[in-house]
Protein backbone atom coordinates (compact mmCIF):
# COMPACT_ATOMS: atom_id res chain seq x y z
CA UNK A 1 0.00 0.00 0.00
CA UNK A 2 1.32 3.35 -0.88
CA UNK A 3 1.50 5.67 2.06
CA UNK A 4 -0.07 9.06 1.71
CA UNK A 5 3.18 10.59 2.77
CA UNK A 6 5.04 13.71 1.76
CA UNK A 7 6.26 12.03 -1.42
CA UNK A 8 2.87 12.49 -2.91
CA UNK A 9 2.19 15.58 -4.91
CA UNK A 10 -0.74 17.47 -3.50
CA UNK A 11 -3.91 17.06 -5.43
CA UNK A 12 -7.53 18.12 -5.42
CA UNK A 13 -9.93 16.67 -2.94
CA UNK A 14 -11.67 13.65 -4.44
CA UNK A 15 -15.06 15.29 -4.15
CA UNK A 16 -14.05 18.21 -6.31
CA UNK A 17 -12.28 15.92 -8.76
CA UNK A 18 -15.37 13.81 -8.92
CA UNK A 19 -17.47 16.83 -9.54
CA UNK A 20 -15.20 17.79 -12.37
CA UNK A 21 -15.24 14.29 -13.69
CA UNK A 22 -19.03 14.28 -13.55
CA UNK A 23 -19.18 17.47 -15.51
CA UNK A 24 -16.54 16.67 -18.10
CA UNK A 25 -16.25 12.93 -18.50
CA UNK A 26 -19.49 11.36 -17.41
CA UNK A 27 -21.48 12.80 -20.26
CA UNK A 28 -21.92 9.25 -21.50
CA UNK A 29 -21.87 7.87 -17.98
CA UNK A 30 -23.29 4.50 -17.19
CA UNK A 31 -25.31 4.20 -13.99
CA UNK A 32 -23.10 1.36 -12.74
CA UNK A 33 -19.93 3.42 -12.99
CA UNK A 34 -21.58 6.22 -11.14
CA UNK A 35 -22.82 3.79 -8.53
CA UNK A 36 -19.30 2.37 -8.19
CA UNK A 37 -17.80 5.79 -7.66
CA UNK A 38 -20.49 6.70 -5.21
CA UNK A 39 -19.88 3.55 -3.18
CA UNK A 40 -16.12 4.09 -3.18
CA UNK A 41 -16.53 7.68 -2.06
CA UNK A 42 -18.62 6.53 0.86
CA UNK A 43 -15.76 4.25 1.85
CA UNK A 44 -12.67 6.39 1.26
CA UNK A 45 -9.33 5.12 2.55
CA UNK A 46 -10.73 1.64 3.07
CA UNK A 47 -9.38 -1.37 1.28
CA UNK A 48 -12.26 -2.59 -0.88
CA UNK A 49 -12.01 -6.19 -2.04
CA UNK A 50 -13.15 -7.12 -5.54
CA UNK A 51 -15.79 -9.44 -4.10
CA UNK A 52 -17.12 -6.65 -1.88
CA UNK A 53 -17.39 -4.26 -4.80
CA UNK A 54 -19.17 -6.84 -6.91
CA UNK A 55 -21.64 -7.60 -4.17
CA UNK A 56 -22.32 -4.00 -3.18
CA UNK A 57 -22.27 -2.30 -6.56
CA UNK A 58 -23.53 -5.02 -8.89
CA UNK A 59 -25.36 -7.23 -6.31
CA UNK A 60 -23.35 -10.00 -7.87
CA UNK A 61 -22.17 -12.57 -5.36
CA UNK A 62 -19.87 -14.67 -7.45
CA UNK A 63 -16.25 -13.85 -8.22
CA UNK A 64 -15.82 -13.96 -11.99
CA UNK A 65 -12.88 -15.60 -13.66
CA UNK A 66 -12.29 -12.57 -15.82
CA UNK A 67 -10.93 -9.31 -14.40
CA UNK A 68 -14.40 -7.82 -14.47
CA UNK A 69 -13.92 -5.45 -11.55
CA UNK A 70 -10.52 -4.29 -12.70
CA UNK A 71 -11.80 -3.41 -16.13
CA UNK A 72 -14.68 -1.39 -14.74
CA UNK A 73 -12.35 0.34 -12.32
CA UNK A 74 -9.93 1.13 -15.10
CA UNK A 75 -12.70 2.89 -16.94
CA UNK A 76 -13.59 4.80 -13.82
CA UNK A 77 -9.94 5.78 -13.32
CA UNK A 78 -9.76 7.14 -16.85
CA UNK A 79 -12.67 9.36 -16.02
CA UNK A 80 -11.54 10.67 -12.65
CA UNK A 81 -7.79 11.04 -13.25
CA UNK A 82 -6.14 13.48 -15.54
CA UNK A 83 -2.91 12.20 -17.08
CA UNK A 84 -0.76 14.44 -14.89
CA UNK A 85 -2.50 13.67 -11.61
CA UNK A 86 -1.65 11.17 -8.91
CA UNK A 87 -4.00 8.17 -9.32
CA UNK A 88 -7.03 8.60 -7.13
CA UNK A 89 -7.78 4.90 -6.95
CA UNK A 90 -4.51 3.05 -6.61
CA UNK A 91 -4.46 -0.68 -7.17
CA UNK A 92 -3.42 -2.43 -3.95
CA UNK A 93 -1.74 -5.35 -5.69
CA UNK A 94 -3.81 -8.54 -5.24
CA UNK A 95 -5.94 -7.25 -2.40
CA UNK A 96 -8.33 -4.70 -3.90
CA UNK A 97 -8.73 -0.98 -4.35
CA UNK A 98 -8.66 2.14 -2.23
CA UNK A 99 -10.10 5.51 -3.03
CA UNK A 100 -7.82 7.98 -1.41
CA UNK A 101 -9.04 11.07 0.30
CA UNK A 102 -6.29 13.61 -0.15
CA UNK A 103 -4.04 14.03 2.86
Amino acid at each position, binding site marked *: *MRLSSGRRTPCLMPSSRVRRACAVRFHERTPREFHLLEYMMQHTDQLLRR*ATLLAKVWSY*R*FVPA*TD*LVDVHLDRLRHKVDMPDEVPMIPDVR*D*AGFILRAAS
Partner: protein
Amino acid sequence: MFAMLDSFSVQLPDFVRTTTFRWTAGAFAVCIVLFSAFVYWKAADYMLAKTDAAVTEESLAIAADSPDRQLNAIDDRLSQDPRHIKLAGLFGSDGHRIVGNLAGLPHGLKIDAPVQSAAAIRIDQNHREEMTVRAIARSLPNGNVLVIARNIDGLKKLAEVVARALILALPFALGFGLVIGMVLSVRAQKRVAELETLVRRIVAGDLRQRLPTQGLDHPFDKLAEIANGMLDEIEAVVQEMAGVGNEMAHDLRTPLTRVRVGLERGRANAKTLEELQAVADRAIGGVDQSLTIITTLLRIAEIEYGGRLGGFDNVALADLIREVGDLYEPIAEDKHISLHIASADNATVCGDRELLLEAVANLVDNALKFTPAGGSVELALVHGDNESIVRVSDSGPGIRENEQKAVTRRFYRSDKSRNTFGFGLGLSLVSAIVKLHGFRLTIAAGPGCVAEIACALPSV
Protein backbone atom coordinates in the same frame (compact mmCIF):
# COMPACT_ATOMS: atom_id res chain seq x y z
CA MET B 1 -56.54 -73.06 3.35
CA PHE B 2 -54.44 -70.00 4.11
CA ALA B 3 -55.88 -69.88 7.58
CA MET B 4 -54.88 -73.48 8.10
CA LEU B 5 -51.38 -72.73 6.88
CA ASP B 6 -51.26 -69.74 9.14
CA SER B 7 -52.05 -71.73 12.21
CA PHE B 8 -49.23 -74.10 11.37
CA SER B 9 -46.77 -71.53 10.26
CA VAL B 10 -45.19 -71.36 13.67
CA GLN B 11 -43.65 -74.78 13.07
CA LEU B 12 -43.52 -74.62 9.27
CA PRO B 13 -40.40 -73.35 7.55
CA ASP B 14 -40.10 -69.75 6.40
CA PHE B 15 -41.06 -70.32 2.79
CA VAL B 16 -44.62 -71.20 3.81
CA ARG B 17 -45.11 -67.60 4.81
CA THR B 18 -43.86 -66.27 1.47
CA THR B 19 -46.37 -64.84 -0.95
CA THR B 20 -44.99 -66.87 -3.86
CA PHE B 21 -45.67 -70.09 -2.02
CA ARG B 22 -49.19 -69.18 -0.96
CA TRP B 23 -50.17 -67.88 -4.34
CA THR B 24 -48.78 -70.89 -6.18
CA ALA B 25 -50.56 -73.37 -3.93
CA GLY B 26 -53.80 -71.39 -3.99
CA ALA B 27 -53.72 -70.87 -7.74
CA PHE B 28 -53.10 -74.58 -8.29
CA ALA B 29 -56.13 -75.60 -6.23
CA VAL B 30 -58.37 -73.09 -7.97
CA CYS B 31 -57.14 -74.26 -11.37
CA ILE B 32 -57.88 -77.93 -10.59
CA VAL B 33 -61.44 -77.14 -9.45
CA LEU B 34 -62.08 -74.95 -12.48
CA PHE B 35 -60.66 -77.58 -14.78
CA SER B 36 -62.91 -80.28 -13.31
CA ALA B 37 -65.96 -78.06 -13.68
CA PHE B 38 -65.02 -77.45 -17.28
CA VAL B 39 -64.59 -81.16 -17.98
CA TYR B 40 -68.02 -81.86 -16.45
CA TRP B 41 -69.63 -79.05 -18.40
CA LYS B 42 -68.19 -80.15 -21.73
CA ALA B 43 -68.99 -83.86 -21.14
CA ALA B 44 -72.56 -83.10 -20.07
CA ASP B 45 -73.02 -80.91 -23.09
CA TYR B 46 -71.81 -83.70 -25.32
CA MET B 47 -74.07 -86.26 -23.66
CA LEU B 48 -77.13 -84.05 -23.98
CA ALA B 49 -76.43 -83.39 -27.63
CA LYS B 50 -76.08 -87.11 -28.29
CA THR B 51 -79.30 -87.92 -26.42
CA ASP B 52 -81.18 -85.17 -28.24
CA ALA B 53 -79.96 -86.41 -31.60
CA ALA B 54 -80.98 -90.01 -30.83
CA VAL B 55 -84.43 -88.94 -29.57
CA THR B 56 -85.08 -86.76 -32.64
CA GLU B 57 -83.94 -89.50 -35.02
CA GLU B 58 -86.13 -92.14 -33.39
CA SER B 59 -89.18 -89.90 -33.31
CA LEU B 60 -88.77 -89.12 -36.99
CA ALA B 61 -88.32 -92.80 -37.88
CA ILE B 62 -91.43 -93.87 -35.97
CA ALA B 63 -93.55 -90.95 -37.18
CA ALA B 64 -92.70 -91.86 -40.76
CA ASP B 65 -94.10 -95.40 -40.30
CA SER B 66 -97.70 -96.28 -41.06
CA PRO B 67 -99.98 -96.11 -38.01
CA ASP B 68 -100.21 -99.91 -37.48
CA ARG B 69 -96.46 -100.40 -37.73
CA GLN B 70 -95.90 -97.61 -35.28
CA LEU B 71 -97.21 -99.71 -32.45
CA ASN B 72 -94.74 -102.48 -33.26
CA ALA B 73 -91.88 -100.05 -33.65
CA ILE B 74 -92.59 -98.58 -30.22
CA ASP B 75 -92.77 -102.02 -28.65
CA ASP B 76 -89.52 -103.02 -30.37
CA ARG B 77 -87.84 -99.91 -29.16
CA LEU B 78 -88.94 -100.45 -25.57
CA SER B 79 -88.02 -104.12 -25.53
CA GLN B 80 -84.39 -103.35 -26.61
CA ASP B 81 -83.70 -101.30 -23.50
CA PRO B 82 -81.80 -103.20 -20.87
CA ARG B 83 -80.89 -100.05 -18.95
CA HIS B 84 -84.48 -98.78 -18.77
CA ILE B 85 -83.63 -95.36 -20.13
CA LYS B 86 -85.90 -95.30 -23.17
CA LEU B 87 -89.43 -94.02 -22.93
CA ALA B 88 -92.04 -93.82 -25.62
CA GLY B 89 -95.78 -93.40 -25.88
CA LEU B 90 -98.51 -92.97 -28.46
CA PHE B 91 -101.45 -90.97 -27.28
CA GLY B 92 -104.82 -90.47 -28.85
CA SER B 93 -106.05 -87.02 -29.75
CA ASP B 94 -108.02 -86.96 -26.48
CA GLY B 95 -104.83 -87.71 -24.53
CA HIS B 96 -105.40 -91.37 -23.63
CA ARG B 97 -102.46 -93.76 -23.95
CA ILE B 98 -102.61 -96.15 -26.88
CA VAL B 99 -99.23 -97.82 -26.32
CA GLY B 100 -95.92 -97.25 -24.52
CA ASN B 101 -94.41 -96.99 -21.08
CA LEU B 102 -95.34 -93.41 -20.37
CA ALA B 103 -98.03 -92.87 -17.77
CA GLY B 104 -99.35 -89.88 -19.70
CA LEU B 105 -98.38 -86.92 -21.79
CA PRO B 106 -95.55 -85.32 -19.76
CA HIS B 107 -96.73 -82.11 -18.18
CA GLY B 108 -95.72 -78.95 -20.04
CA LEU B 109 -94.27 -80.81 -23.01
CA LYS B 110 -94.77 -78.71 -26.13
CA ILE B 111 -95.95 -80.59 -29.19
CA ASP B 112 -94.01 -80.28 -32.47
CA ALA B 113 -91.20 -78.44 -30.70
CA PRO B 114 -87.50 -79.38 -30.53
CA VAL B 115 -86.21 -81.76 -27.86
CA GLN B 116 -86.79 -80.39 -24.38
CA SER B 117 -86.40 -81.36 -20.75
CA ALA B 118 -89.49 -82.65 -19.02
CA ALA B 119 -90.62 -84.67 -16.04
CA ALA B 120 -92.10 -88.01 -17.03
CA ILE B 121 -93.50 -91.08 -15.26
CA ARG B 122 -92.31 -94.43 -16.53
CA ILE B 123 -94.49 -97.44 -15.90
CA ASP B 124 -93.94 -101.15 -16.46
CA GLN B 125 -95.62 -104.27 -15.24
CA ASN B 126 -95.00 -103.76 -11.56
CA HIS B 127 -93.89 -100.22 -10.78
CA ARG B 128 -93.93 -96.59 -11.82
CA GLU B 129 -90.99 -94.25 -11.61
CA GLU B 130 -90.71 -90.51 -11.94
CA MET B 131 -87.68 -89.23 -13.83
CA THR B 132 -86.22 -86.27 -15.73
CA VAL B 133 -86.07 -86.87 -19.43
CA ARG B 134 -85.23 -85.24 -22.73
CA ALA B 135 -88.42 -85.63 -24.75
CA ILE B 136 -89.96 -84.72 -28.09
CA ALA B 137 -93.64 -84.82 -29.00
CA ARG B 138 -94.94 -85.05 -32.57
CA SER B 139 -98.52 -84.87 -33.73
CA LEU B 140 -99.24 -87.53 -36.33
CA PRO B 141 -101.46 -87.08 -39.41
CA ASN B 142 -104.23 -89.19 -37.78
CA GLY B 143 -104.42 -86.85 -34.79
CA ASN B 144 -102.40 -89.05 -32.41
CA VAL B 145 -99.41 -87.70 -30.51
CA LEU B 146 -96.09 -89.58 -30.47
CA VAL B 147 -93.76 -88.96 -27.51
CA ILE B 148 -90.18 -90.24 -27.56
CA ALA B 149 -88.00 -89.59 -24.50
CA ARG B 150 -84.79 -90.69 -22.89
CA ASN B 151 -83.76 -90.65 -19.26
CA ILE B 152 -80.88 -88.30 -18.47
CA ASP B 153 -80.03 -89.56 -15.01
CA GLY B 154 -76.72 -90.49 -16.66
CA LEU B 155 -75.72 -86.85 -16.30
CA LYS B 156 -75.86 -87.20 -12.54
CA LYS B 157 -73.63 -90.23 -12.79
CA LEU B 158 -71.22 -88.23 -14.93
CA ALA B 159 -71.08 -85.51 -12.30
CA GLU B 160 -70.33 -88.17 -9.69
CA VAL B 161 -67.51 -89.60 -11.81
CA VAL B 162 -65.96 -86.18 -12.31
CA ALA B 163 -66.27 -85.39 -8.61
CA ARG B 164 -64.63 -88.70 -7.73
CA ALA B 165 -61.81 -87.99 -10.15
CA LEU B 166 -61.45 -84.56 -8.62
CA ILE B 167 -61.26 -85.94 -5.10
CA LEU B 168 -58.58 -88.39 -6.22
CA ALA B 169 -56.59 -85.85 -8.20
CA LEU B 170 -56.87 -82.86 -5.90
CA PRO B 171 -54.44 -84.06 -3.20
CA PHE B 172 -51.86 -84.95 -5.83
CA ALA B 173 -52.29 -81.67 -7.65
CA LEU B 174 -52.21 -79.77 -4.40
CA GLY B 175 -49.09 -81.61 -3.32
CA PHE B 176 -47.49 -80.86 -6.65
CA GLY B 177 -48.51 -77.22 -6.35
CA LEU B 178 -47.03 -77.03 -2.88
CA VAL B 179 -43.77 -78.52 -4.09
CA ILE B 180 -43.54 -76.06 -6.97
CA GLY B 181 -44.46 -73.20 -4.67
CA MET B 182 -41.82 -74.36 -2.25
CA VAL B 183 -39.15 -74.62 -4.92
CA LEU B 184 -40.00 -71.20 -6.29
CA SER B 185 -40.11 -69.49 -2.95
CA VAL B 186 -36.96 -71.20 -1.69
CA ARG B 187 -35.17 -70.13 -4.87
CA ALA B 188 -36.44 -66.59 -4.46
CA GLN B 189 -35.39 -66.60 -0.82
CA LYS B 190 -31.95 -67.84 -1.74
CA ARG B 191 -31.50 -65.00 -4.23
CA VAL B 192 -32.79 -62.48 -1.70
CA ALA B 193 -30.35 -63.82 0.86
CA GLU B 194 -27.57 -63.57 -1.74
CA LEU B 195 -28.53 -60.00 -2.52
CA GLU B 196 -28.72 -59.20 1.16
CA THR B 197 -25.13 -60.27 1.80
CA LEU B 198 -23.96 -58.28 -1.21
CA VAL B 199 -25.95 -55.21 -0.19
CA ARG B 200 -24.50 -55.48 3.30
CA ARG B 201 -21.04 -55.50 1.78
CA ILE B 202 -21.93 -52.45 -0.32
CA VAL B 203 -23.40 -50.66 2.70
CA ALA B 204 -20.16 -51.43 4.53
CA GLY B 205 -18.40 -49.36 1.87
CA ASP B 206 -17.39 -51.78 -0.88
CA LEU B 207 -18.95 -49.78 -3.70
CA ARG B 208 -17.32 -51.84 -6.45
CA GLN B 209 -19.62 -54.79 -5.68
CA ARG B 210 -22.36 -55.43 -8.22
CA LEU B 211 -25.40 -57.64 -7.92
CA PRO B 212 -25.15 -60.81 -10.02
CA THR B 213 -27.41 -61.28 -13.02
CA GLN B 214 -28.12 -64.58 -14.68
CA GLY B 215 -28.65 -63.10 -18.12
CA LEU B 216 -32.27 -64.16 -18.11
CA ASP B 217 -35.36 -62.04 -18.47
CA HIS B 218 -36.19 -62.66 -14.85
CA PRO B 219 -37.68 -60.00 -12.60
CA PHE B 220 -34.78 -60.49 -10.21
CA ASP B 221 -32.34 -59.83 -13.02
CA LYS B 222 -34.16 -56.65 -13.93
CA LEU B 223 -34.11 -55.58 -10.31
CA ALA B 224 -30.41 -56.35 -10.12
CA GLU B 225 -29.80 -54.34 -13.29
CA ILE B 226 -31.68 -51.36 -11.86
CA ALA B 227 -29.76 -51.61 -8.61
CA ASN B 228 -26.47 -51.93 -10.49
CA GLY B 229 -27.26 -48.84 -12.53
CA MET B 230 -27.95 -47.01 -9.29
CA LEU B 231 -24.67 -48.27 -7.83
CA ASP B 232 -22.78 -47.04 -10.92
CA GLU B 233 -24.22 -43.58 -10.33
CA ILE B 234 -23.49 -43.65 -6.63
CA GLU B 235 -19.96 -44.87 -7.20
CA ALA B 236 -19.35 -42.11 -9.72
CA VAL B 237 -20.75 -39.51 -7.33
CA VAL B 238 -18.72 -40.82 -4.41
CA GLN B 239 -15.58 -40.83 -6.53
CA GLU B 240 -16.37 -37.33 -7.69
CA MET B 241 -16.82 -36.25 -4.09
CA ALA B 242 -13.51 -37.81 -3.16
CA GLY B 243 -11.97 -36.06 -6.17
CA VAL B 244 -13.56 -32.80 -5.09
CA GLY B 245 -12.04 -33.21 -1.65
CA ASN B 246 -8.59 -33.69 -3.16
CA GLU B 247 -8.95 -30.88 -5.66
CA MET B 248 -10.35 -28.56 -3.03
CA ALA B 249 -7.48 -29.26 -0.65
CA HIS B 250 -5.06 -28.68 -3.50
CA ASP B 251 -6.69 -25.49 -4.73
CA LEU B 252 -6.83 -24.11 -1.22
CA ARG B 253 -3.28 -25.08 -0.40
CA THR B 254 -1.67 -23.37 -3.37
CA PRO B 255 -2.65 -19.77 -2.50
CA LEU B 256 -2.19 -20.40 1.22
CA THR B 257 1.31 -21.76 0.69
CA ARG B 258 2.12 -18.71 -1.40
CA VAL B 259 0.79 -16.47 1.39
CA ARG B 260 2.88 -18.28 3.96
CA VAL B 261 6.07 -18.04 1.94
CA GLY B 262 5.38 -14.37 1.24
CA LEU B 263 4.76 -13.61 4.90
CA GLU B 264 7.90 -15.45 5.97
CA ARG B 265 10.04 -13.58 3.47
CA GLY B 266 8.39 -10.27 4.32
CA ARG B 267 8.96 -10.80 8.00
CA ALA B 268 12.64 -11.48 7.41
CA ASN B 269 13.33 -8.91 4.72
CA ALA B 270 10.93 -5.98 5.10
CA LYS B 271 12.81 -2.93 6.28
CA THR B 272 10.16 -0.24 6.22
CA LEU B 273 6.57 -0.13 7.23
CA GLU B 274 5.72 0.43 3.57
CA GLU B 275 7.36 -2.80 2.53
CA LEU B 276 5.64 -4.67 5.31
CA GLN B 277 2.30 -3.29 4.26
CA ALA B 278 2.95 -4.40 0.71
CA VAL B 279 3.62 -7.90 2.02
CA ALA B 280 0.39 -7.78 4.02
CA ASP B 281 -1.55 -6.67 0.91
CA ARG B 282 -0.28 -9.62 -1.07
CA ALA B 283 -1.16 -11.93 1.82
CA ILE B 284 -4.69 -10.55 1.93
CA GLY B 285 -5.00 -11.17 -1.79
CA GLY B 286 -3.93 -14.79 -1.37
CA VAL B 287 -6.23 -15.40 1.55
CA ASP B 288 -9.07 -13.80 -0.41
CA GLN B 289 -8.46 -16.25 -3.22
CA SER B 290 -8.88 -19.16 -0.79
CA LEU B 291 -11.91 -17.54 0.77
CA THR B 292 -13.45 -17.12 -2.66
CA ILE B 293 -13.18 -20.85 -3.30
CA ILE B 294 -14.81 -21.64 0.03
CA THR B 295 -17.56 -19.06 -0.47
CA THR B 296 -18.33 -20.39 -3.93
CA LEU B 297 -18.46 -23.98 -2.71
CA LEU B 298 -20.81 -23.02 0.09
CA ARG B 299 -22.91 -21.11 -2.36
CA ILE B 300 -23.21 -24.09 -4.70
CA ALA B 301 -24.16 -26.28 -1.74
CA GLU B 302 -26.69 -23.66 -0.63
CA ILE B 303 -28.26 -23.58 -4.09
CA GLU B 304 -28.20 -27.35 -4.48
CA TYR B 305 -29.64 -28.25 -1.12
CA GLY B 306 -31.15 -25.06 0.21
CA GLY B 307 -33.76 -24.68 -2.50
CA ARG B 308 -34.17 -20.90 -2.64
CA LEU B 309 -37.60 -21.31 -4.14
CA GLY B 310 -38.92 -18.63 -1.82
CA GLY B 311 -37.27 -15.91 -3.86
CA PHE B 312 -38.92 -16.94 -7.13
CA ASP B 313 -40.62 -14.25 -9.10
CA ASN B 314 -41.25 -13.30 -12.71
CA VAL B 315 -38.00 -12.56 -14.50
CA ALA B 316 -37.90 -10.82 -17.86
CA LEU B 317 -35.10 -12.60 -19.70
CA ALA B 318 -34.46 -9.84 -22.25
CA ASP B 319 -33.76 -7.30 -19.48
CA LEU B 320 -31.56 -9.82 -17.76
CA ILE B 321 -29.32 -10.49 -20.73
CA ARG B 322 -29.13 -6.79 -21.48
CA GLU B 323 -27.85 -6.24 -17.98
CA VAL B 324 -25.26 -8.99 -18.35
CA GLY B 325 -24.27 -7.47 -21.67
CA ASP B 326 -23.76 -4.05 -20.05
CA LEU B 327 -21.68 -5.64 -17.33
CA TYR B 328 -19.36 -7.46 -19.71
CA GLU B 329 -19.20 -4.99 -22.56
CA PRO B 330 -16.06 -3.25 -21.20
CA ILE B 331 -14.25 -6.55 -20.70
CA ALA B 332 -15.01 -7.65 -24.23
CA GLU B 333 -13.78 -4.32 -25.52
CA ASP B 334 -10.61 -4.61 -23.46
CA LYS B 335 -9.91 -8.07 -24.84
CA HIS B 336 -10.77 -7.00 -28.40
CA ILE B 337 -13.64 -9.41 -28.59
CA SER B 338 -16.90 -8.32 -30.16
CA LEU B 339 -19.83 -9.02 -27.85
CA HIS B 340 -23.23 -9.23 -29.55
CA ILE B 341 -26.44 -9.09 -27.61
CA ALA B 342 -29.54 -10.28 -29.43
CA SER B 343 -32.90 -10.79 -27.87
CA ALA B 344 -35.55 -11.77 -30.36
CA ASP B 345 -37.74 -13.11 -27.63
CA ASN B 346 -39.15 -11.27 -24.66
CA ALA B 347 -40.16 -14.12 -22.43
CA THR B 348 -40.83 -13.98 -18.73
CA VAL B 349 -39.91 -16.99 -16.67
CA CYS B 350 -40.42 -17.85 -13.03
CA GLY B 351 -37.14 -17.76 -11.18
CA ASP B 352 -34.69 -16.08 -8.87
CA ARG B 353 -33.47 -13.05 -10.81
CA GLU B 354 -30.21 -12.74 -8.93
CA LEU B 355 -29.31 -16.38 -9.46
CA LEU B 356 -30.30 -16.40 -13.14
CA LEU B 357 -28.24 -13.28 -13.70
CA GLU B 358 -25.35 -15.02 -12.06
CA ALA B 359 -25.75 -18.10 -14.23
CA VAL B 360 -25.88 -16.14 -17.48
CA ALA B 361 -23.04 -13.87 -16.36
CA ASN B 362 -20.97 -16.93 -15.59
CA LEU B 363 -21.48 -18.34 -19.06
CA VAL B 364 -20.53 -15.04 -20.64
CA ASP B 365 -17.58 -14.76 -18.28
CA ASN B 366 -16.42 -18.20 -19.36
CA ALA B 367 -16.92 -17.45 -23.02
CA LEU B 368 -14.90 -14.23 -22.76
CA LYS B 369 -12.20 -16.01 -20.83
CA PHE B 370 -11.66 -18.71 -23.42
CA THR B 371 -12.12 -16.66 -26.58
CA PRO B 372 -8.87 -15.32 -28.00
CA ALA B 373 -8.53 -11.66 -28.95
CA GLY B 374 -10.25 -10.80 -32.20
CA GLY B 375 -12.94 -13.40 -31.65
CA SER B 376 -16.59 -12.89 -30.94
CA VAL B 377 -19.07 -13.84 -28.25
CA GLU B 378 -22.81 -13.80 -28.79
CA LEU B 379 -25.41 -13.67 -26.06
CA ALA B 380 -28.79 -14.39 -27.57
CA LEU B 381 -32.28 -15.02 -26.35
CA VAL B 382 -34.09 -17.29 -28.78
CA HIS B 383 -37.57 -18.69 -28.82
CA GLY B 384 -37.74 -22.44 -28.38
CA ASP B 385 -40.47 -25.00 -28.25
CA ASN B 386 -42.44 -23.95 -25.16
CA GLU B 387 -39.23 -22.59 -23.71
CA SER B 388 -36.96 -19.66 -24.00
CA ILE B 389 -33.30 -20.34 -24.68
CA VAL B 390 -30.45 -18.18 -23.45
CA ARG B 391 -27.60 -19.04 -25.79
CA VAL B 392 -24.01 -18.04 -25.22
CA SER B 393 -21.81 -18.91 -28.17
CA ASP B 394 -18.21 -17.98 -28.79
CA SER B 395 -15.51 -18.42 -31.37
CA GLY B 396 -13.12 -19.97 -28.84
CA PRO B 397 -11.63 -23.44 -28.93
CA GLY B 398 -14.76 -25.05 -27.44
CA ILE B 399 -14.77 -28.26 -25.43
CA ARG B 400 -14.01 -31.81 -26.47
CA GLU B 401 -16.76 -34.40 -26.53
CA ASN B 402 -15.24 -36.39 -23.67
CA GLU B 403 -15.25 -33.29 -21.51
CA GLN B 404 -18.86 -32.43 -22.16
CA LYS B 405 -20.16 -33.97 -18.94
CA ALA B 406 -17.11 -33.24 -16.86
CA VAL B 407 -17.16 -29.48 -17.32
CA THR B 408 -20.04 -29.05 -14.90
CA ARG B 409 -18.17 -31.05 -12.28
CA ARG B 410 -16.71 -29.18 -9.40
CA PHE B 411 -13.07 -28.17 -9.84
CA TYR B 412 -12.95 -29.60 -13.33
CA ARG B 413 -10.61 -27.64 -15.52
CA SER B 414 -9.96 -28.47 -19.10
CA ASP B 415 -6.27 -29.13 -19.82
CA LYS B 416 -6.34 -26.09 -22.06
CA SER B 417 -7.33 -23.90 -19.14
CA ARG B 418 -4.84 -25.32 -16.63
CA ASN B 419 -2.74 -22.19 -16.84
CA THR B 420 -5.63 -19.73 -16.84
CA PHE B 421 -6.88 -18.13 -13.68
CA GLY B 422 -10.06 -19.73 -12.46
CA PHE B 423 -11.41 -22.13 -9.91
CA GLY B 424 -13.22 -24.64 -12.05
CA LEU B 425 -16.38 -23.86 -10.13
CA GLY B 426 -18.19 -21.56 -12.53
CA LEU B 427 -20.03 -24.15 -14.54
CA SER B 428 -20.95 -26.24 -11.49
CA LEU B 429 -22.55 -23.12 -10.09
CA VAL B 430 -24.45 -22.55 -13.35
CA SER B 431 -25.47 -26.19 -13.35
CA ALA B 432 -26.73 -25.94 -9.75
CA ILE B 433 -28.72 -22.80 -10.52
CA VAL B 434 -30.23 -24.30 -13.67
CA LYS B 435 -31.16 -27.47 -11.79
CA LEU B 436 -32.80 -25.46 -9.01
CA HIS B 437 -35.04 -23.79 -11.59
CA GLY B 438 -35.84 -27.04 -13.37
CA PHE B 439 -34.28 -25.63 -16.54
CA ARG B 440 -31.91 -27.43 -18.87
CA LEU B 441 -28.22 -26.71 -19.41
CA THR B 442 -26.59 -27.98 -22.58
CA ILE B 443 -23.03 -27.40 -23.59
CA ALA B 444 -22.25 -28.48 -27.11
CA ALA B 445 -18.93 -30.07 -27.90
CA GLY B 446 -16.69 -29.05 -30.74
CA PRO B 447 -14.93 -25.83 -31.68
CA GLY B 448 -16.85 -22.67 -30.88
CA CYS B 449 -18.48 -23.39 -27.55
CA VAL B 450 -22.27 -23.09 -27.44
CA ALA B 451 -23.84 -23.15 -23.99
CA GLU B 452 -27.60 -22.99 -23.69
CA ILE B 453 -29.96 -22.60 -20.78
CA ALA B 454 -33.40 -23.71 -21.87
CA CYS B 455 -35.87 -21.99 -19.56
CA ALA B 456 -39.26 -23.64 -19.38
CA LEU B 457 -41.99 -21.05 -19.79
CA PRO B 458 -44.56 -21.00 -17.01
CA SER B 459 -47.75 -22.68 -18.14
CA VAL B 460 -50.51 -20.15 -18.55
